[in-house]
């Protein structure tokens, strides 16, 4: 009969069995470490109950949220989250445009165009974002002081307190009207799509009195006509909101009305757009260059113009390799937006820092910040993955 030791030796002769042991030991230590951290963490105060108490501090930017210092810390925090989402959404949109244009320009045969794009990338990619943010803050502070604000025919006022633009104000039915317009817009889009598709497939075009009409034109005209008609039908739901600056009886300059583009928002937006744009430029350039030269030549051979070749042949194919690294840049942008704290833009990080300082409970608030950024990042990833699936679909 074989001894126990012999059988163990026999068993351990197989690589597979040894691997099992090693993995079991490894797992044991990982579990140990996990338990250790869990025990340490369970002793900590992680409750967020103090978030329901009165905030007690004011915020300079309250976009879409009607925040006052009497609200709870939750409302203050939510205001910060909205401010972060606001700057990130606008920045992601603009930086994609900028990066795409610059990426194409970088490959231009025109010497000046390509060198401008090259300089843009090399200078702005290689300087710290924080410094760029402070630079833009200082730039926007150099706008005239409010007592000497530049005004354009009483519709726009520019000062270092903010750039005031005409905007629309609600006369009562605006919300319903906007929802209605949204439905009409979707309908018009579908109509254009349907007409174009029909023309592609059957060659039948949409025509009135024998005049052939483009499907896009039909959709746009439908939307414009319905908008104008319903504007009156809904009893003029919106009106122009003209900004105004004036001194009150104590001499304080007050801004009212219009859309207020504050220097803080503008500075963080410019910095994020321009900094992230450099990376997107390089992504777009790299993806275009990775395509075979034959694609461009083939597009030219069938008589497409340079613009058509770019938009119909090159960019749609380049998109497949653009989207995944682009997602990374969007995530970076979102996380970098927390640097807004240095120039007094109340994003979620700044508001939660204030709450942390007022309450003294640093750890649970930090967890909340982490979870919020994680949530925002996962949302971006989700959307981008859906887009990625769409563009990489074979035969799409």
């Amino acid at each position, binding site marked *: 009969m074989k001894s126990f030791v012999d059988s163990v030796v026999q068993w351990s002769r197989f690589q597979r069995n040894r691997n099992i042991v090693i993995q079991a030991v490894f797992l044991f230590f990982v579990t140990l470490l996990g338990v250790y951290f869990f025990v340490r963490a369970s002793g900590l105060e992680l409750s967020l109950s103090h978030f329901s108490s009165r905030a007690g501090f004011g915020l300079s930017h309250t976009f879409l949220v009607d925040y006052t210092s009497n609200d709870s810390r939750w409302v203050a925090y939510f205001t910060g989250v909205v401010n972060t989402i606001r700057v990130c959404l606008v920045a992601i949109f603009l930086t994609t445009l900028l990066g795409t244009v610059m990426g194409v320009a970088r490959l231009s045969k025109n010497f000046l165009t390509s060198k401008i794009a090259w300089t843009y990338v090399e200078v702005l990619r290689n300087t710290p974002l924080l410094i760029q943010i402070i630079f833009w803050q200082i730039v926007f502070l150099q706008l005239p002081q409010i007592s000497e604000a530049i005004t354009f025919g009483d519709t726009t006022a520019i000062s270092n307190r903010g750039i005031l633009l005409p905007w629309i104000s609600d006369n009562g039915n605006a919300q319903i009207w906007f929802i209605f317009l949204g439905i009409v817009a979707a309908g018009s889009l579908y109509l254009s799509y349907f007409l174009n598709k029909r023309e592609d497939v059957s060659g039948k075009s949409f025509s009135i009195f024998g005049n052939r009409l483009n499907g896009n034109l039909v959709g746009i005209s439908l939307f414009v006509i319905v908008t104008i008609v319903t504007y009156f039908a809904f009893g003029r739901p919106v009106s122009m909101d003209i900004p105004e600056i004036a001194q*009150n009886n104590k001499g*304080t300059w007050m801004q009212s009305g219009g859309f207020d583009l504050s220097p803080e928002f503008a500075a963080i937006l410019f910095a994020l757009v321009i900094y992230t744009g450099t990376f997107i430029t390089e992504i777009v350039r790299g993806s275009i260059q990775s395509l075979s030269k034959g694609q461009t030549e083939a597009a030219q051979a069938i008589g497409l113009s340079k613009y058509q070749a770019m938009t119909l042949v090159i960019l749609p194919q380049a998109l497949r390799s653009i989207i995944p690294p682009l997602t990374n840049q969007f995530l970076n942008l979102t996380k970098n937006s927390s640097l807004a704290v240095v120039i007094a833009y109340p994003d979620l990080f700044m508001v939660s820092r204030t709450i942390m300082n007022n309450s003294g409970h640093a750890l649970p608030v930090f967890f909340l910040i982490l979870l919020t950024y994680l949530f925002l990042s996962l949302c971006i990833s989700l959307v981008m993955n859906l887009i990625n699936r769409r563009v990489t679909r074979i035969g799409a």
Partner: protein
Amino acid sequence: MKKIKYTLLISALFAMTAFSFACASEDSSEASSSGGSSTLQQVLDRGMLKCGVNDNLAGFGVVAADGSFSGFDIDFCKAVAAAILGDSSKVEYTPTTASNRFEALGSGEIDLLIRNTTWTASRDRELKQDFTAPTFYDGQGMMVYVDSGYNSIDDMEGATICVLQGTTTELNLDDRFTGTGMSYTPLTFETNDPLQAAFEEKRCDGWTTDKSGLASKRASFPASAGGPEALKVLPETLSKEPLGPLTRDNDSEFYDVVQWVVFGMMQAEESGINSSNVSSIASNPPNPGVARLLGASFEGGEVQDFSFGIPKDFMQKVISQVGNYGEVYDRHLVPLGLERAGSLNAMWTEGGLIYAPPFR
């Protein structure tokens, strides 16, 4: 190839084990630091006091071009170092910001925080930190441009106010404005430099912080933006702001040393002892009270020992190397225009609040 994998796994295992041991040892050092006397002992062992300070507030704490620190708060760091280590130069200064200062102290990065920090109930209790004794009685004020025409905060309806983040200042400001039904826009900055840049460009109508801070910012206001004459501090005081050094909670030996060094400096001023006469007074104290303060013998008698765990004559070193409270005040705060007479910072004998419990 397989062998390499094997080695990698083994080394990973070792790394994990080493890491968990490192965590465990960190644990034990933490335990010892939270227990009793250790900060004082650590400072003695290290031969260096780690002091968290402001590096950008004229008069209270500024760093010069050569990296040396000076100011009212800095002198109290020096005084504590002189008391514990006998040498006021044995201080390692760590610049802190308004928002990271408590974490720096709580984490043990610094031993002592002297950074124009207001004593409040929530900080004392919730932040697990202890205020020793107020060194300066401050109050929040509002600074505006002279040409703004403001004479009181009541004139500032709708104004934009620049304020620093993470301070009671933000809350007092809101209490003052919303409490009287006035609208305002706070522009909350994390550090002073971008705030000052915004104020210089009149991005905001007012700048609010402790009056001492306003006085120092006003005194150093750049001529390109109008200089000190372009600014005025409104007479109103928004809050009580007693400023003083902080130590960690449950650190009573170190806490007592810091507290009684501050009291000793106040008592020295009251007793007429200053840096130039301290050695002659110590060699021949005029009365037993002075002898007890200086840890000197009165007419050959026994020297009083307060058992602070540091040399009995610590106040002699503090006063000879740093000076008494009045000297420190005159050196740093009078040049800013913060007059002492008639303010809360006068000696109690002159109607102020500077009062030391008895050394006996």
